[in-house]
C-alpha cells in the first residue's frame, strides 16, 4: 500500500493553526465554532485514513527532513493510529456538546464566562494529545505533555470561580511535578545513552548497566504514573476533575489519563522489554483498582463517583501492561479505546443530569427516570458498559484481560484476576447506587423544571452510540488491537521503520544527502522489516 506520509503531521498542525485562527476571531463565537468543528472533523478524517494506512506498517515522518536520531521523528503505528482515531472522535463529540451548552447558557443564564478562550485552548489540547500519540522522540513527548497541560490548566480554571481555582491549583502543581520528574528522567536517559529518539533508545538501552536501567525505568513510570493516576499517585484526580465544566471534565477523564497510559505502554514495551517491574506494576494494578472503586462506593456526588471509577479502571489497563503478553496488551489496547468513550459518555451524561436536576449530588437528585426517561437510558447503557455487563465492550475487554492473567498463571496474576472481578462487581454496586438515588428514588425536594437542550442531548447520545458501536465492531477492532500488540512485543517494526539505514533514519542531515539516499535504497532492498514497513523512502 502506498503511504500518504503527508497525513502524519496533520493531526497536530491542523488544530494548532485552527487555534490561532479561533483566537483571531475571539469576538465572533459562531465563526469560532465553525473553525473548531471543521478542524476537528479534518483531524477525524485524517485519523481514519491513518488507521488504514498504518495497518500496512508504521508511517514515519522525519520532521524538516532531518534524519531520525538527529531530528524528530513522527511515527504512526497501529497503536498510535487507533488512539488518534478514538481521541479525535471523542474530541469532536465533546466539542459539539460544549457548543450546545455554550449556546444554551448564553440564552437562559447571566453567566458570561470568557468563552472566547475556550475554542483556541480546546484546539491546542487536541494538538497536544495528537502530538503525544505520534511522537517518536522522548523530549517531543515531553513538549506534547506540556502543550496538553498548558491547555488543560486554562480549561480546568475556566471562569476562575473560587472552587475551580482551589481544585485547579492542586491539579496544576501536581501536573507540573510530574512533568519535572519526566524531565529529570529525560536528562538521566540522555546522560546514559546520548540519545532521545525512542527507536535508538531501544537499541542502546540494553547496553546500559542494569541498575541504571532500573532507575531510568522507575523515573519514567513515576512521571507517567502521576499523569495516568495510578494508585499512590492518584489522589489529585478525584479532587480536581469534578469541579471543572462538564465537557472539560469529560474530555480530561477520557483522554488525559489515557495519554499517560499510552506513554507507559510505549516506553515499557519499546524501551524496557525485560519486564523487571512487572510484579510491582501488578501490585499497583490491584491497589489502583480496589482503592479507586472503594472511593467510588463512598461518594455521594455523581461526578466524584465517576472520577473514582476512572481511577479504579486505570488499574485494568495497568494490569494488561504488566502482563506484557500479546493477549494482555491487545486487551489493554481494546480496553483503552472502550474506556475513553465510555468514561467521556458518562461525564457528559452527568453534565446533562446537572443541567436537568440543577445538581450532581445524589442526595438531592431523584425521580429522574420518570421526569426524563431518555436521560435515564443514556445513563444506563454506558453505566452498564463501564461495569462490564455482557455483551457490551467493557465485558469483552475485561474477559481479554482476565484471560491474559490466567495464562500467566502466577499467584500474583491470579490475585489481580480476583481483584479485577471484585472491582467489576463493586463498579456495578456504585453505579447501581447512583442509578437508584438519582433515577428511581423520589427526589427529596422537587427538581427545578428545566429542559435539557436537544443539541446537548444529541451530542451526549452520539458519544454513547460510539461506545456502543465499539461493542458492535468489537471483532475487527479487537483484531486490530491484537496486531498492534504483536507489533509492540516484537519491537522490530517500530525500530526498523524509524531507523531505516541501520542507525539512521531517512531524510537529510549534515549535508550528506546523497549518502543517506543511497543507503536508504539498499536498506529497503535488503532488510525484510524495512521493506514491509515501506518507510519514508517514497517521500524523498
Amino acid at each position, binding site marked *: 500500500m502506498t503511504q500518504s506520509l503527508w497525513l502524519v503531521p496533520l493531526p497536530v498542525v491542523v488544530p494548532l493553526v485552527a487555534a490561532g485562527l479561533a483566537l483571531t476571531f475571539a469576538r465572533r463565537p459562531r465563526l469560532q465554532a465553525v473553525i473548531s468543528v471543521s478542524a476537528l472533523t479534518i483531524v477525524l478524517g485524517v485519523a481514519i485514513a491513518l488507521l488504514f494506512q498504518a495497518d500496512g506498517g508504521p508511517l514515519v515522518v522525519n520532521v524538516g527532513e532531518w534524519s531520525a536520531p538527529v531530528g524528530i521523528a513522527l511515527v504512526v503505528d497501529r497503536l498510535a493510529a487507533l488512539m488518534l482515531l478514538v481521541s479525535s472522535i471523542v474530541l469532536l463529540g465533546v466539542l459539539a456538546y460544549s457548543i450546545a451548552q455554550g449556546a444554551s447558557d448564553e440564552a437562559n443564564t447571566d453567566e458570561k464566562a470568557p468563552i472566547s478562550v475556550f475554542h483556541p485552548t480546546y484546539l491546542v489540547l487536541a494538538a497536544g494529545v495528537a502530538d503525544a500519540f505520534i511522537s517518536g522522540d522522548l523530549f517531543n513527548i515531553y513538549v506534547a505533555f506540556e502543550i496538553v497541560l498548558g491547555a488543560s490548566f486554562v480549561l480546568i480554571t475556566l471562569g476562575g470561580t473560587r472552587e475551580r481555582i482551589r481544585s485547579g491549583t492542586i491539579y496544576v502543581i501536581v501536573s507540573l511535578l510530574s512533568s519535572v520528574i519526566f524531565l529529570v528522567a529525560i536528562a538521566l536517559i540522555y546522560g546514559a545513552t546520548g540519545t*532521545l529518539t525512542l527507536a535508538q533508545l531501544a537499541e542502546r538501552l540494553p547496553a546500559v548497566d542494569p541498575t541504571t536501567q532500573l532507575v531510568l525505568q522507575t523515573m519514567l513510570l513515576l512521571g507517567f504514573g502521576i499523569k495516568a493516576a495510578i494508585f499512590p499517585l492518584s489522589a489529585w484526580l478525584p479532587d480536581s476533575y469534578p469541579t471543572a465544566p462538564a465537557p472539560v471534565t469529560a474530555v480530561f477523564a477520557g483522554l488525559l489519563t489515557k495519554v499517560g497510559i499510552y506513554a507507559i505502554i510505549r516506553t515499557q514495551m519499546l524501551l524496557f522489554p525485560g519486564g523487571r517491574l512487572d510484579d510491582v506494576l501488578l501490585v499497583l494494578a490491584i491497589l489502583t483498582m480496589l482503592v479507586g472503586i472503594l472511593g467510588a462506593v463512598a461518594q455521594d456526588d455523581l461526578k466524584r463517583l465517576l472520577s473514582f471509577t476512572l481511577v479504579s479502571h486505570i488499574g485494568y489497563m495497568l494490569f494488561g501492561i504488566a502482563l506484557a503478553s500479546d493477549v494482555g496488551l491487545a486487551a489493554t489496547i481494546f480496553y483503552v479505546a472502550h474506556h475513553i468513550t465510555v468514561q467521556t459518555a458518562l461525564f457528559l451524561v452527568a453534565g446533562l443530569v446537572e443541567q436537568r436536576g440543577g445538581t450532581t449530588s*445524589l442526595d438531592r437528585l431523584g425521580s429522574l427516570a420518570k421526569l426524563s426517561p431518555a436521560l435515564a437510558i443514556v445513563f444506563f447503557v454506558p453505566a452498564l458498559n463501564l461495569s462490564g455487563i455482557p455483551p457490551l465492550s467493557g465485558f469483552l475487554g475485561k474477559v481479554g484481560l482476565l484471560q491474559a492473567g490466567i495464562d500467566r498463571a502466577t499467584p500474583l496474576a491470579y490475585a489481580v484476576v480476583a481483584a479485577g472481578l471484585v472491582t467489576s462487581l463493586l463498579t456495578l454496586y456504585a453505579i447501581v447506587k447512583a442509578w437508584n438515588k438519582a433515577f428511581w428514588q423520589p427526589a427529596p425536594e422537587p427538581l427545578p423544571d428545566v429542559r435539557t437542550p436537544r443539541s446537548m442531548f444529541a451530542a451526549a447520545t452520539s458519544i454513547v452510540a460510539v461506545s456502543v458501536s465499539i461493542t458492535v465492531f468489537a471483532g475487527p477492532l479487537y483484531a486490530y488491537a491484537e496486531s498492534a500488540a504483536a507489533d509492540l512485543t516484537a519491537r522490530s517494526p517500530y525500530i526498523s521503520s524509524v531507523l531505516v539505514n541501520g542507525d539512521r533514519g531517512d531524510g537529510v542531515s549534515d549535508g550528506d544527502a546523497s549518502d543517506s539516499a543511497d543507503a536508504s535504497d539498499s536498506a529497503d532492498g535488503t532488510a525484510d522489516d524495512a521493506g514491509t514497513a515501506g518507510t519514508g523512502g517514497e517521500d524523498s
Partner: protein
Amino acid sequence: MIVTDHTPSLVLVIVVGALVATGVYLLLERSLTRVLIGIALIGNGVNLLILVMGGAAGAPPLIGSSDEPMSDPLPQALVLTAIVITLGFTAFILAMAYRSWQLTGHDEIQDDVEDRRIARRAERGELDLRSDEEGRRNAALEAAQVRDETEDDDLPTTPARDTTDEGGER
C-alpha cells in the same frame, strides 16, 4: 567533534541537589507563592542537570567556528525549551495566586473539604445520606471559612471547625 568527557563537575552536581532539595521543601508549603518559588527552583535545578548530562563544556557548538571540541548542542536546545515552558507556567501560577487572593484574601492551597465531610459522616456512622442535608450546606460554608494552616493568629481555625461540626450534628 563533540566533547565526550562525561564525568560531571562535582560543584554542579551539588548545586543541582541543593536547588532541587530547596524546591521540594518549598513545594510542601501551603502558600501558593512559596510553591511557585519551589517549582521555579526545581525547574532550574533540572535544567542544570540536563546541561550537566551533556558532558563537559567546550567551544560554542557552531560548525567551523573553532578547532577545539564543541559542547553538545542538544542539551542546550532542551534547556532552552524547558525554560520557556517553565516561564509560561510560572506566569499562569502567578495569575492563579492573584486570583485566589482576590477571591479569598489569601493564596493558601486548601484541602478538599468534601473528603473530610465524608470521613466525618463515616465516623458518626451515618448511613442515610439524605438526612445530612444540614452537613452538606455546611460544607460550602466550611470551604469558605476553614484555613488548613493558621497564618494569621487572630483568625482561629479550630473554633470555626467546631461550630460547623455542631451544625452538622444538629
